[in-house]
Structure formats: structure tokens, C-alpha cells
């Protein structure tokens, strides 16, 4: 919902299964706004194609549903016969017909027949649900699997341009919506349709006049529902809007809690909250009330039908046009009739929202994937770490080139420092090196091999990377380090941790390497997280290292130790370092100065100072301030 689109990543989302529109609570869910699919037919067809492997099961579901419904439809009429027999016997008694008695043999036979019908109907109803459970859940399982597989094949461009919440909501909430529909609404639809047809036939066989009465009440309820639904949609929209505002306010106030407290704005924030809350209440109760009117109105209209049946039926019996048991049967039919009608109305909504959900899921599945791998892929068996950019051009958007004709040659073992103000687009280079994005023209070569001629997997195995935002998952510290290389031994993990100076702090934790990082990994500090990701990179033992501002949130003293480990690690490896610290920058073999996304200067420290350009300016601002400070 609205909240999912914000606050990426860290959001805990336990209420993912929200009973939103299309939650399918029968008539109670009516009147909520329904999302509509753009291409209903096409999406429906495609969704149906997912059910194809289960054709046999679906046919049996259909058959069992029909059998079970037909049997339950027939029974009221048979039961009515028993009542009629009773009544007739009674009337004979009243009229003192000689030897009059109620024919219990006949009634007994009917009852045995009924019991049989009921049991068979129940068995088939159970079978139907039982089979459908397997079909629906497996279909959804496959759909989820497909989405996950797709996510792994999508280029990073896709993820960078969308929030995680949005993708998550499609992969989880929308798929879940489909699951509920397949499980419940589909069979409901079948039984409803069968019931409606069956009941009409049965009613007609009893009395066409009374059938007409029941059917005449239908448009009445239709009009009532449509009117109310329209009205309630307005309130639901208002409610949705206030809810969105409220969620936004809460999110902002909680994340900014510290600032609010220290600036003493608690009261103001509560006042604002209460204002939105009041608005939510006003539209909320109205939406609730108006949509809640549907049920009473419908049951009233049903009751009108009921009364008419009783009256007309009663008169018809006195005229001997129908039998008394028929009234009883008819009342039961009329009751059975209104329920599936209401159901199909809400199912129509559910199906609409399901198709809209399916469409959103299919949109993910239809996204263009990464450029396919080279057919005859090259493999570098002994990577040396030579990196060459030849006439590379690149831009995130068409017509907005960021890099134009870039040429660099990095020899094995050299260190490249990437410098520039924040937001200068330093991660762009990494995106290109690792082929997270495709370049527009030119070539990037590693050990003389075009990166596009290698498999991505192979290319990436040459790199080790420590990113600015540490990514750790909800598992033990050991597992998080071991992520660097599949099948790493215990000793290797500990050695890597030691090399990253993480071993010590890990051992001071209560559970040591077995400590489970919580979902936001908030049980260790930012610096410690960084150390773990460094350990992970060390374990991977790559030919080329990428350090993306890796040490900026590790404090100075820890950094000294990391730096030592890194220096050791970088020996013999080509490394790209996005750094803030001049000491790192100065020792680099090549400095790339970036601004506004493109490389504006390159060279060694001395060369660049001599050039007296952007870099010199940057460097001097730091240098002069030091001089002043020191002096």
C-alpha cells in the first residue's frame, strides 16, 4: 500500500497480508474502490495459462463442485415432499378421513435418501476444496519462483529506478492476492453459478409465479448496492488519503524522534497527528457505515421476497395450485439464491483486483532482462588484474552522457583513487566495471578481454567489493562472512575476520561468531558492520578490489588497523578506491577526479597539483585549513 513505496530496505513489514481491497470478505468488502487492470482480457488469458498444467485437477474440481452443488440443490425439494406428506396426512386426520395416518414409511425413505444426498454432497465439497488447495498454492509457488528468477536476471537499472517497497509489494502482496482468489473465489464462482442456475430450475419446477417474484427482487438489490457502493467509494478514497498522510507523519516523526525531542517539538507533532487522526476518523467511520449499509439493505430486500413467497405461496396452497412442502422448499431456495448472487457481485470485484495484481506481477516478468551472455564466453584462468577503458561512453539516460570517450589503463597491482565531491557519481565507475550497467560505446578490457565477452558471473568473480552501504543479512556473523566464498572453511573465515580486525570484536559478543544479526543489523555498530563486509571481501580473495568509501564510517583508529590489513590485501591486486582521505589518495598510482557524474581530471597527485585544476582546489582547501589550524 501507500507506505510500501517509501522507506526502502529497512522497513519491517509484518502486516504484508493486508485485508485491502479484494480481501474477499463477502459483502462486507463491497463498496471499496477496486483497482482495474489495463488489459483485462490479455492478463486473464495469461493468468489462466499458469493453470494449464493442472487441467486435470481443475476439471475434477469443476465436476466435484457441480455434483456437490446439484445434490445440495435437489434436497430442499425432496425435503418439501416429506413436509407435504406430513401435511396431507394431517389434513386427512383433521378431515377425519377413515384410517388416516401420516405415512412414515414414505417419510422415512425420503429421509434416508436425503441423508445420502447430504453425505455425498459434503464429500464432493471437501474433495473440491482439497484439490483446489494443491492447485492454487502450487500455481502461486511457481509464480513467486518465476518472479524471483526474473529479479535475478533484471539489470540493476531496474532496481535503481524503483523503490524496494514497490517491487516487494508486487512480489508479495499482489501474488498473495492472486493466491486467495484462486483458492476461494474461483470455486466460489463455480458453485455460485451452478447454484443460481440450479435454483432457478428448481424454483421454476415448483411455481413460475413465485420464481418471478424472487427474480424481481434482484434488480432492486442491484440498484441499492450500486448506489451505496458509489457513495462509499468517495469515503474510502478520503480514508485512504488520510491514512496515507497519517502513515507519512508517523514515519517522519519516529525517524526524526531525536531531533524532535532535542528541539522540543513533541507537543506540536502530537497536535498535527491528532488533526490528521481526526480527519481519518471522520472519513473512516463514514466509509465503514455506508459500506455496512449494504448488508442490512440486502437482507431487507431478501425478506421482502420471503414475505411475498409466504403470502403468495400460502394463497396458492389454499387454491391447491402448489403443495405446502413447496413453500418450505421455496423459502430455502430463495435463501440459497440470494447468497450466491451477492457472492458473484463481490467476486466480480475480487477478480478485477486480482487481474490488476496479476498485471503488476506480469509487468515485472516482462521487463527487459540483462543483455544475454556472450555465446563463446572467454575465461581468464589466471587473472592478473589489468584494467583498460577504451573510448568508453556512458549515460544513465539517453541524451545525457556522463562519460564521454574515457581512456584509462591500469596495470596489475596498481591503485586507482576516485575522488570528488559527494554526489559526483563515483559509483558509476563501479557500475560499469562490474557490468551492472551496459556501456553505450567503447570497450572495457580486463587482462585484454572485453568484459562483454565474459560471462557476468566470471567477470564478477574477479572483483571483490566493499560497498558504502553495508549489506548484511539476518543470520549469524559466520554466515555473513562466509558469504564471500562458497564452501569456505572455519579457519578461513576466522582468518578473514582477523585480517579485517573483526575477530576481536566478534569474540567479545555474547555468542561470538554465532551471534545472529537482527533484521536491521542494529545489534552491531556501523563500523563493525563495515569490518564484516571487509572480512567478506577478504575471504573472496579477488584479483581486483573495489572499495566504495569503505572505511568512511569506520572510525579513525579502527581504520588505521583496517588500512594495514587493506594494504596487505591490496598488494599484488589492482584496486579502485573511492576515498575521502588524502593519505589514501596521495599514494594512488592514478587519481580519477569526478564531478557531476563524469571524470573531469585524471593523473597522479603531483600531476594533478601541477595542473592546478579542480583537484588542486580540493586539495588546497584541506591543506590550507590544516596550515591555519596547525599554525
Amino acid at each position, binding site marked *: 500500500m501507500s507506505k510500501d513505496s517509501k*522507506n526502502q530496505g529497512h522497513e*519491517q513489514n*509484518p*502486516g504484508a497480508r493486508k485485508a485491502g481491497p479484494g480481501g474477499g470478505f463477502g459483502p462486507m468488502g463491497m463498496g471499496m474502490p477496486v483497482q482495474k487492470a489495463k488489459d483485462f482480457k490479455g492478463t486473464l488469458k495469461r493468468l489462466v495459462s499458469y493453470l494449464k498444467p493442472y487441467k486435470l485437477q481443475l476439471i475434477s474440481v469443476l465436476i466435484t463442485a457441480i455434483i456437490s452443488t446439484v445434490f*445440495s440443490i435437489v434436497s430442499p425439494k425432496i*425435503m418439501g415432499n*416429506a*413436509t407435504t406428506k*406430513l401435511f396431507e396426512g394431517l389434513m386427512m386426520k383433521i378431515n377425519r378421513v377413515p384410517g388416516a395416518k*401420516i405415512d412414515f414409511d414414505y417419510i422415512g425413505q425420503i*429421509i434416508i435418501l436425503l441423508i445420502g444426498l447430504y453425505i455425498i454432497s*459434503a464429500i464432493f*465439497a471437501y474433495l473440491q476444496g482439497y484439490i483446489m*488447495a*494443491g492447485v492454487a498454492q502450487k500455481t502461486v509457488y511457481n509464480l513467486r519462483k518465476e518472479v524471483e528468477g526474473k*529479479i*535475478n536476471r533484471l539489470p540493476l537499472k531496474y*532496481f535503481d529506478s524503483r523503490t*524496494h517497497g514497490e517491487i*516487494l509489494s508486487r512480489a508479495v502482496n499482489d501474488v498473495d492476492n492472486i493466491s486467495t482468489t484462486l483458492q476461494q473465489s474461483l470455486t466460489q464462482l463455480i458453485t455460485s453459478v451452478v447454484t443460481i442456475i440450479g435454483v432457478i430450475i428448481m424454483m421454476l419446477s415448483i411455481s413460475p409465479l413465485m420464481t418471478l417474484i424472487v427474480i424481481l427482487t434482484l434488480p432492486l438489490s442491484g440498484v441499492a448496492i450500486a448506489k451505496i457502493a458509489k457513495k462509499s467509494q468517495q469515503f474510502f478514497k478520503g480514508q485512504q488519503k488520510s491514512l496515507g498522510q497519517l502513515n507519512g507523519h508517523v514515519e517522519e516523526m519516529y525517524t*526524526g*524522534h531525536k*531531533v524532535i*525531542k532535542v*528541539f*522540543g517539538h513533541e507537543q506540536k507533532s*502530537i497536535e498535527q497527528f491528532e488533526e490528521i*487522526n481526526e480527519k481519518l476518523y471522520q472519513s473512516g467511520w463514514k466509509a465503514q*457505515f455506508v459500506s455496512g449499509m449494504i*448488508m*442490512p*439493505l440486502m437482507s*431487507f430486500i431478501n*425478506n421482502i421476497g*420471503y414475505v411475498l413467497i*409466504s403470502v403468495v405461496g*400460502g394463497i396458492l396452497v*389454499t387454491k391447491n395450485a402448489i403443495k405446502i412442502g413447496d413453500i418450505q422448499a421455496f*423459502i430455502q431456495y430463495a435463501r440459497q439464491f440470494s447468497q450466491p448472487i451477492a457472492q458473484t457481485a463481490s467476486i466480480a470485484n475480487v477478480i478485477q483486483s486480482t487481474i490488476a495484481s496479476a498485471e503488476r506481477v506480469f509487468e515485472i516478468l516482462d521487463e527487459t532482462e540483462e543483455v544475454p551472455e556472450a555465446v563463446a564466453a572467454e575465461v581468464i584462468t589466471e587473472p592478473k588484474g589489468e584494467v583498460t577503458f577504451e573510448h568508453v561512453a556512458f549515460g544513465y539516460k539517453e541524451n545525457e552522457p556522463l562519460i564521454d570517450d574515457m581512456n584509462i589503463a591500469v596495470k596489475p597491482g596498481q591503485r586507482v583513487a576516485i575522488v570528488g*565531491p*559527494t554526489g559526483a557519481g563515483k559509483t558509476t565507475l563501479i557500475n560499469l566495471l*562490474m557490468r*551492472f550497467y551496459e556501456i553505450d560505446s567503447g570497450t572495457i578490457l580486463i587482462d585484454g578481454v572485453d568484459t562483454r565477452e565474459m560471462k557476468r558471473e566470471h567477470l*564478477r*568473480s574477479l572483483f571483490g567489493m566493499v*560497498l558504502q552501504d553495508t549489506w548484511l*543479512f539476518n543470520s549469524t556473523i559466520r554466515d555473513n562472512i562466509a558469504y564471500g566464498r562458497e564452501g569456505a572453511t572455519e579457519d578461513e573465515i576466522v582468518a578473514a575476520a582477523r585480517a579485517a580486525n573483526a575477530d576481536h570484536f566478534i569474540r*567479545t559478543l555474547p555468542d561470538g561468531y554465532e551471534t545472529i544479526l537482527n533484521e*536491521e543489523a*542494529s545489534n552491531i555498530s556501523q563500523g563493525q558492520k563495515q569490518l564484516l563486509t571487509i572480512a*567478506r571481501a577478504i575471504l573472496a580473495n579477488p584479483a581486483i578490489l573495489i572499495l566504495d568509501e569503505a572505511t568512511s564510517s*569506520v*572510525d579513525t583508529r579502527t581504520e*588505521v588497523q583496517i588500512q594495514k590489513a587493506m594494504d596487505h590485501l591490496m598488494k599484488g591486486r589492482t584496486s579502485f578506491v573511492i576515498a575521502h582521505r588524502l593519505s589514501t589518495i*596521495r599514494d594512488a598510482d592514478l587519481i580519477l577526479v569526478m564531478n557531476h557524474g563524469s571524470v573531469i581530471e585524471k593523473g597522479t597527485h603531483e600531476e594533478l597539483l601541477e595542473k592546478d585544476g579542480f583537484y588542486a582546489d*580540493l586539495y588546497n*582547501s*584541506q591543506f590550507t*585549513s590544516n596550515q591555519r*589550524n596547525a599554525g
Partner: protein
Amino acid sequence: MIKLSRFLKPFQIPIYFVLGLVLLQSLAELYLPTLMADIVDKGVVTGDTAYIWKIGGFMLLVAAGGMICSLAASFYSAKAASGFGKLLRTKVFSHVGDFSLHEFDKLGTASLITRTTNDITQIQQVLVMMLRMMAMAPMMCIGGIIMAYSKDSKLTLVLAVALPILVLAIVIIAKKGIPLFKAMQVKLDNLNRVLRENLTGIRVIRSFNRVEHEKKRFDAANWDLTQTAIKVNKLMAAMMPIMMIVLNLSTVAIIWFGGIRISNGHMQVGDMMAFIQYAMQIMFSFIMLSMMFVMIPRASVSAVRINEVIDTVADIKNPANPVLGKGAKGQVEFRNVTFSYPGAEMPAISNISFSMNPGEVTAIIGGTGSGKSTLINLIPRFYDVDSGNVLVDGVDVREMTQEQLREKIGFVPQQAVLFTGTIAENIRYGKEDATEDEVRHAAEIAQANEFISDMPDGFDATIAQGGTNVSGGQKQRLSIARALVRKPEIYIFDDSFSALDFKTDAKLRGALKGETGDSTVLIVAQRVSTIIDADQILVLDNGEITGIGTHKELMESSAVYREIVMSQLSEEEIA
């Protein structure tokens, strides 16, 4: 769930109304078959058409009455449930407002957000359902039994047998089903988590070539969920048929035993027909009830989570008799302060003693986990110390009100937080009645003027929620301006220059010097260059002060400090 019911108290009257109205509505529903029985027994048997019409008209009135009751019940339940939601939200929100950082750490910010929003909405929805549908079942049951009993007490025995069987069936399925539903929720969350990790870590996953691994992880979670979902739905598939069979067999029983009683002249045919309908209505209401238990586990999870928030008591409270500071304005002193985070084995900081005076700049430097942020969080009393005292203006912070204390402080947090609104509004957050000039001046000192004037609306440019439309460095500068406009006695900068490039950093520090004049300034920093000219530098290591002094003094006396400096500056810079 039950614990939350105390918040229903203000809505007692509407809720009693709802219950009463639902009872009336049920009675009306049940009265219709009784009237129909009259039509059969008195009208049809004697052929009295006029009587049939009369009763028919009466039935319409009863039906209309039932509808009115039902509408009114809908009205009151909507009001009560929405009111309850509103009350609970306000309660939770203002309660969370009283939390100190400690409680935020414990429950997690993201989790607190969902608890205040989604969880309460969930509960509110369930309450509506409870009031409208769940209340119906017992009412129908009571009303139905009364009606049935009044028609024929002996035949009521059929219900006495059928109802317990139905209830038993529901209970058994619920017992089996509820844990499964709960398990399914857990597994769904699990799947969610795996997928979210997959998205947030996509670069890492791809660069380490662990796509296959992630696929397996996802598949395991996916399959696990599917298995449970199949189990749940298979169980649920049994529910309806079982209920229908109980329902249908009892009608059959009614016909059989009713027939015998009719034959013996104890009962009339119309009564039996009415009886069948009572039974149906009672049992249908039970079936409705059983549908609800799908919602109960979800709601109870939400309720538990909300209760957790409400039961969490903020451990920082204002004193009964606050004392006002009499000492020098802006003086801060730590006396033997020790503090540990709850559950931690070791104190985060121990035996910290130092003081800072107006007009002085104090800097703190130290390694990861050395306790720098912890230390400064004690000054605005985000946490309470375990032992020792933190004094501001000569008074223990625990003896002032939090408002008095924080009025003195201009705090710039490590992570710049901005709020939805214009840039000017965000700066004014520090001082609500700041003039335009004051705002401009603060922005200028914070080196924010340049980028603000680059924006199309200047100071009136809107900051999006979470400040997503400004860069990290810009956010930091605005958050500094916000503290500056306050003109506080004490400035606290918690590593607030990290997102700035060298040039801006240097300019900003130059400008700040003139601005902070008589105030006490505390700076936590990573870069030595930022703090090199501070009046005193505290070197923190493992939560203890290992050195206090100026840069020059520390270069000689502190090995830790020297190590830090060496890593950052070249020889000529140090000299």
C-alpha cells in the same frame, strides 16, 4: 486482544447499543418464520386468504424493523470501531513520543511505525467484524433457542444435540487451524525478509556470484510457505462440508421427530417449518462466526505488538520539583559517569569526568565503539546514566525538566533528519519565531545559501518526505543551520561534517567560529583536521578517556591520538 479492550471503555454505550440492536435484529429475523408458521397453520389450513395478507403485511413491518435495527447497529459499530482506532492511535503515538532513545533502540523505529499504523488499522477492522458478525452468532443462538423453545420444547432437544456438535467441530478445526495460520504468517514474513534482503543486497549478491544461493534460499522459504498454505487450505476445505452436514442432518432430524410429534397432535406443520428455519439461522450464524477465526490470529499478533508498545514505560521522566540552573550559562560537566546499554556486558562508557565551558570548543575523537556518540547522547538526556552525574549549568540533568534542558542545546545529529515542508520551515524548526534574516544568516553560516538559491523556490523550496530531494551534504548543512538559528548555549555536533567535501567543511568551520562565540561547543569528528584547533580534545578508547588536552599536548602524551593523526595527515601537516 483482551488487554486492549480497556480502550473500548469510552465506547461502552455505543457498543451496548450495537449489542442490543443486533439482538433485536436477530429476533426480527427469527420472528419472520414464526409468522410464516401462522400463515401455514391458521391461514392455509383454514383457507383464510385475508388472514394470510394481514400476516404478510405484518411480516413486512417486522422485516423493516429488523433493517432499521441493523442499520443503526452498523452506524454505532462504525463509530465505535473508528473511535477506538482513533483513540488507540493517539494513545500509542503520544506514548511513543515519551520514549527515550533506549525504547526506540529496543523496539526498532521501523517496527514502531508499523505498530502505530498497520497494526492498529488491523485491529480496528477486526473490531468492526466482531461487532457486526461475531455478536450475531450468540444473539441468534439465544433468540433462536427461545423461539424454538416457545414453539415446541421437546423438539428443541434436536438443537441441544446439534449445536454442541457444531461448536465442537468449530473448536477442533480452530484448534488445528489457528496454529497453522500463525505459522503461515511467520513463513510469509520470512519469505518477505528473504526477498527484501535480496533487493537491498543486489549488488553484493551479484558481485559475489551468489545468485544461485539466493535462489535456493528463496525457494526454501517459498516451498515452506506453500506447504503450510496447502495444509491450511486442506483443513479449511473440511470445515464447510462438516458444518453443512451437521446443519442438514439436524433439519432431517427435525422433520422426522417433528413428523412424529405432528402425528401425535403435539405440533403443527407450520411450526415445524418455522423450526427448520430457526435451526438454519442459528447454525448459519455459527458458520459466519467460524469464518472469523481466520482473522483472529492476525489481529492477535497485532494486538500483542501494540500492547508491547503501550506496556513499555519510558524510563526517563521529568522530576517532580525541577531545579533551574544557577551556574554559568552553557557549562557542562561529567562527573564519574558510567553508562551501559541494557543487556550489555560491558559499560559503553565508564568513569568519564571532564567539563566544558562557554566560549570553548571541546572535541571528541576515538575509534569505533569507543563511546563517542553515547557520551554526547547523555547531555540532552536521551539516556540516563548508571552512576555519576551529568551537570548542565551546575544542575544534574535529571533534576531539570527535559524541555528546560533541551532549550539550551543546539544538536546536530550524525544522520541529518529533515521534515516535510519548506527549507525555511526546516530551519525555523530550531527557533519557531526566527525572523527571515535570522534564517538567512543561519543558512549562510552553514554554507547552505549557495545551493538554496540554486533551487527554483529558494527558501520556499519544499523538502520531500525523508529529505530525498536533497543530497546528504545538503541535508547536513540544513541540519546545522537549524541548530544555528536556535542560538543555543550548547552546540553539539555529532560527526556532522562527514558528508561535506573538504572545501565546504573548511569554509563552514571558518564561519562557525565567529558564530558560536560565547557558547559551549562540542564536536565529535573523524577527521583530525576538523578538531585540530579545539581548546580541548578528549581521546576516547573503549569507553574511557585516555587523554585530554590540546592537539600539541596530545601529540606528545597520547599514543592513541598519535596513531590516529598519523593515519590521516602527512608529516608536514602535523608539524
